């Protein structure tokens, strides 16, 4: 039998490092960054050349657009908050939160942790942080390419819109954490989380509450970039988003505690 010698290169493991390694050793981090950077690079091109692109596929029909503005160049990227980018973040987060889907893994974790917040906190923080970082990378790519092709977008509007995006993605990860405690499978968790996130804008049809809903943050970038609204206009939505996100995490911990393996 080999001797019991501790390799000098070992780095201490804990639940935080586990989540970091989950991002690093699986395609999760790369996928998130690639998706947001891809759309960050694509949207300014589509905005700048939309007339030419449509004239090539329009069978001779000529479509005229007003000249592309820097705000329009980056707005397309922020639309991913309610599109592909959001779906990718939810799918990746669901993979981390659905440990109960694997019986042996659930036993390993549940019989060793002393509180379920210890399981939820690193998963939420690392996934929300990675999603936010990927989103910022994409925003930088969108800003740079818009600057090259159309002109420099307003820095204040960009920062405000990016803040809305980062908070929205954190909220989406919190909702996914709660969804994972309603069902066990990853696919079902993704379905419930996306249904909740996509259904929320419907409630915004009722105007008096529209500015208070978390979904207001996903539509805020267009108004912030064009200068139609200031960031302070969205403070109620920020407050509600943070409160509901925190409530979703607390509810996730309570439901995990009550659930049998």
């Amino acid at each position, binding site marked *: 039998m080999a001797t019991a010698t501790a390799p000098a290169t070992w780095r201490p493991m804990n639940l935080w490092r586990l989540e970091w*390694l989950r991002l690093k050793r699986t395609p999760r981090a790369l996928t998130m960054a690639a998706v947001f950077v891809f759309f960050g690079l694509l949207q300014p091109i589509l905005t700048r050349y939309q007339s030419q692109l449509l004239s090539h596929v329009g069978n001779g029909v000529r479509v005229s657009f007003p000249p592309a503005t820097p705000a329009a160049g980056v707005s397309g990227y922020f639309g991913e908050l309610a599109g592909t980018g959001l779906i990718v973040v939810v799918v990746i987060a669901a993979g981390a939160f659905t440990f109960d889907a694997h019986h042996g893994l659930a036993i390993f974790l549940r019989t060793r942790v002393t509180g379920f917040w210890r399981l939820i906190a690193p998963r939420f923080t690392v996934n929300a942080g990675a999603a936010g970082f990927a989103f910022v990378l994409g925003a930088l790519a969108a800003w740079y390419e818009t600057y090259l092709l159309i002109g420099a977008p307003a820095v204040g509007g960009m920062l405000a819109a990016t803040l809305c995006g980062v908070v929205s993605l954190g909220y989406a990860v919190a909702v996914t954490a709660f969804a994972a405690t309603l069902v066990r499978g990853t696919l079902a968790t993704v379905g419930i989380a996306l249904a909740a996130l996509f259904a929320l804008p419907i409630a915004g049809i009722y105007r008096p509450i529209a500015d208070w809903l978390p979904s207001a943050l996903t539509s805020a970038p267009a108004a912030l970039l064009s200068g139609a609204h200031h960031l302070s206009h969205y403070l109620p939505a920020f407050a509600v988003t943070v409160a509901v996100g925190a409530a979703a995490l607390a509810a996730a911990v309570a439901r995990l505690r009550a659930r049998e393996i």
Partner: protein
Amino acid sequence: MPEFDGWLTAAEVTDLARSLVAPSASKQAVAAALAAAGLADSAGRRVGGFSRGMLQRLGLACALVGEPELLILDEPTSALDPAGRAEMLSMVAAMRGRRTVIFSSHILADVQRIADQVGILRDGRLIYQGATKDLIDTYLEPSWLVRIAGDLLPVAAALAGQPWTTRAEPVAADAIRVDATSLEAGERGIPAVIARCGARQVSCEPVAADLESAFLALTGARS
């Protein structure tokens, strides 16, 4: 069967277990647990490529890293090949004298090999608890295989006629299986009957008592 994230190495999985159950333990405890589970050479390998036997051993390493006084193993040899089963049993047997191991199994040969004490559950009730040896001695009728040179039928008939015999029948051309009501009755009675018959005894071997037979005797007696 234990499950772990396949992109972690065996050392990282064991170290994660250490951080959760014994955070003050040193890195050396992780190496010692892996070595005790026979995984020292695979410490740096990702567990996604591990066989079932290696996963079982990794599960054992995760349990051992906290130096538990009591270890509960639920069917640790299930789904293992004979070599893996033997390794797991050897590891559990090596813990004798250092910690209490509660080991559940349907494979009674495994239990007999490593357990000092045994409990038998039926329909959710504990119908026996005590030393493994006592169970075998108490619930198994003593048996012998008697080999005779020449005609064995008269000897079988004479043995069957004894009050202490529960069964005496030929099982081969030169062998009689004899079951007695007690060890002492058989040991005294069998040689005497053979002598009275004038038969030539080649050998008289006790049939090895096993836990499986004792289990069947116990559960059959209570049915």
